[in-house]
């Protein structure tokens, strides 16, 4: 293994481990701001460091510090302490492990070497996801069971039954998708989605599998125990379900596990149905061939975006009543100067690329970075859909939930398999 190989292994694993973790902060922030937006209120706007609130992100840091310094209580009636402690770890680790096989850029070609851009370059792809998701259930079951508490037990039962039932429509929706792509390897699936249907429509999964995408997204919502399927927590009826007895960092692990799971399933939905890292109409080869004009376009576009973003910050980040020496104005000035220095640094880097390094390896790396950006942007939007649904739909009743899973989604998924295979056999 050369030094480059080792560097890329470290980079990929670091990406696979730290990006979901940093997205936890982004998602908690998005959840709070989203909830505030949907309910027409302000959201987190008080916690600050030296007057900087970072749009509410500092609230996350405050919460993290609070959870880390809380007393870690293991209730006296808990008989199986080992399982009680193991459960939150299992939930968190399985959520994080799922991300290992999701590609975040196309295969990186450096010289004569090919690097698959996944944290773990395994070619069983989607099967790994299905396997690891199954283990998440253990965490929930063990948490509910070892809490030895009526609410905990009910929450655990509900969550486990729900996850096990929705794995079936999810798996069946995947079967028809696998028939379309003809592979289980997620990188190959992503490459397939770079092609064009009839020469002008991107061959994304959502175009080829319109029914499958709906089934899969509904099942994915149920798998992550998010509203409208969050009966496992059901604050109004069973307090908090399976994590009612947990406190401090053990609770934080459940909480973070939920958001990591949400990020990973968004990433998977994007990978399977929304073109993964592909920029529509521009597949990897086109991007590499047109790297220079693309960079010039970005260099022109960046200040424009920066200008509008700065204007947006200026419009929103201010006191909504008269104050002497408004501190928000100072805050805004700092944010805008930060924004412009970021734009300036990016411009300098891109200019250096244009002058010194264009062609060959630099083009490949640039395209990979662009694709990582595209992938994260799409995943961010998909995460917003999760937040959107959570604050829009009410919670289902438990019998309704099982009815949707078994009586609606399952037959629809089977029908989808028949239609898909008929089309593939007759036209494909």
């Amino acid at each position, binding site marked *: 293994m050369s030094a480059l190989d080792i560097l890329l292994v470290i980079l990929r694993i670091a990406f696979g481990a730290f990006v979901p973790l940093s997205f936890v902060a982004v998602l908690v922030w998005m959840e709070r701001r989203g909830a505030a937006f949907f309910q027409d209120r302000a959201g987190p706007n008080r916690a600050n460091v030296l007057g900087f609130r970072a749009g509410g992100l500092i609230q996350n840091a405050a919460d993290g510090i609070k959870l880390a310094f809380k007393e870690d209580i293991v209730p006296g009636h808990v008989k199986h302490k080992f399982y009680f402690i193991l459960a939150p770890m299992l939930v968190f680790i399985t959520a994080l492990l799922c991300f290992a096989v999701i590609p975040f850029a196309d295969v990186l070609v450096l010289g004569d070497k090919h690097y698959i851009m996944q944290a773990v370059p395994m*070619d*069983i792809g989607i*099967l790994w996801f299905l*396997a690891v998701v*199954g*283990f998440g259930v253990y965490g929930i079951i063990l948490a509910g069971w070892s809490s030895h508490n009526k609410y905990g037990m009910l929450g655990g039962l509900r969550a486990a*039954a729900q996850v*096990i039932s929705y794995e079936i429509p999810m798996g069946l929706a995947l079967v028809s998708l696998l028939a379309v792509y003809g592979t289980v390897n997620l990188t190959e699936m992503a490459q397939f989605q770079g092609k064009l249907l009839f020469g002008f429509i991107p061959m994304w999964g959502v175009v080829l599998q319109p029914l499958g995408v709906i089934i899969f997204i509904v099942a994915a919502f149920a798998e992550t125990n998010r509203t409208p399927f969050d009966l496992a927590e059901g604050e109004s009826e069973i307090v908090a379900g399976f994590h009612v007895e947990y406190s401090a960092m053990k609770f934080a692990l459940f909480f973070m596990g939920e958001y990591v799971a949400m990020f990973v399933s968004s990433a998977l939905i994007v990978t399977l149905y929304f073109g993964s890292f592909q920029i529509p109409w521009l597949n990897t080869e086109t991007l590499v061939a047109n790297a220079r004009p693309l960079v010039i376009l970005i260099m022109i576009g960046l200040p424009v975006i920066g200008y509008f973003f700065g204007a947006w910050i200026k419009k929103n980040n201010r006191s909504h009543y008269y104050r002497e020496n408004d501190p928000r104005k100072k805050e805004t000035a700092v944010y805008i100067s930060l924004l412009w220095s970021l734009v300036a640094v990016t411009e300098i880097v891109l200019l250096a690329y244009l002058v010194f390094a264009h062609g060959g390896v630099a083009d490949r790396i640039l395209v990979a970075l662009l694709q990582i950006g595209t992938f994260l942007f799409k995943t961010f939007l998909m995460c917003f859909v999760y937040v959107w649904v959570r604050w829009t739909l009410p919670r289902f009743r438990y019998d309704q939930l099982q009815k949707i899973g078994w009586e609606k989604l399952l037959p629809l998924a089977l029908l989808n398999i028949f239609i898909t295979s008929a089309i593939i056999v007759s036209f494909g």
Partner: protein
Amino acid sequence: MLTTYLFFGLALLAVLGALGLIIFKHPMNGAMSFVVTLISLAGLYALLSAKLIFAIQLIVYAGAIMSLIVFIIMFLNIQEKDLPLDPNRWFYVAGGIIVVGPIAGLLINISRTLPATEVTVFDDGFGSVKEVGQLLFTQWLLPFEIVSILLLVALVGAVVLAGKRGVN
């Protein structure tokens, strides 16, 4: 070199899990140690570069079947006091050792006398989804279909048995 250590680690875990399954009294402990065994077996399959079997072992056995068993243990909330008394336990253990002992000796002898052969590493295609699928649907189509019918029969049987309860 690394694979040898991995093999020993996984094999040790598998045996320990199996021992835990029969030694632990509490059903949840037994089930969880069995999960450890199943996962280590999956690891052993992966070492043999049987990728599809690795995934299926994790999805079906370690994931689906065992989570159903753990779910049932939780659902019925079985505690140690609910278990039947087993006063003759050690008698059965001793009998088991006497019966299994010679067979174990035979197996050890067989593995000792195995001829030493060169180990060849298969290429990437071996054990992957495509290869196994093509083998299953060309050379082994009839057994595959027969197994599918068997599973279908089991499924219908389960539905009939579950549906009978309501009708007298």
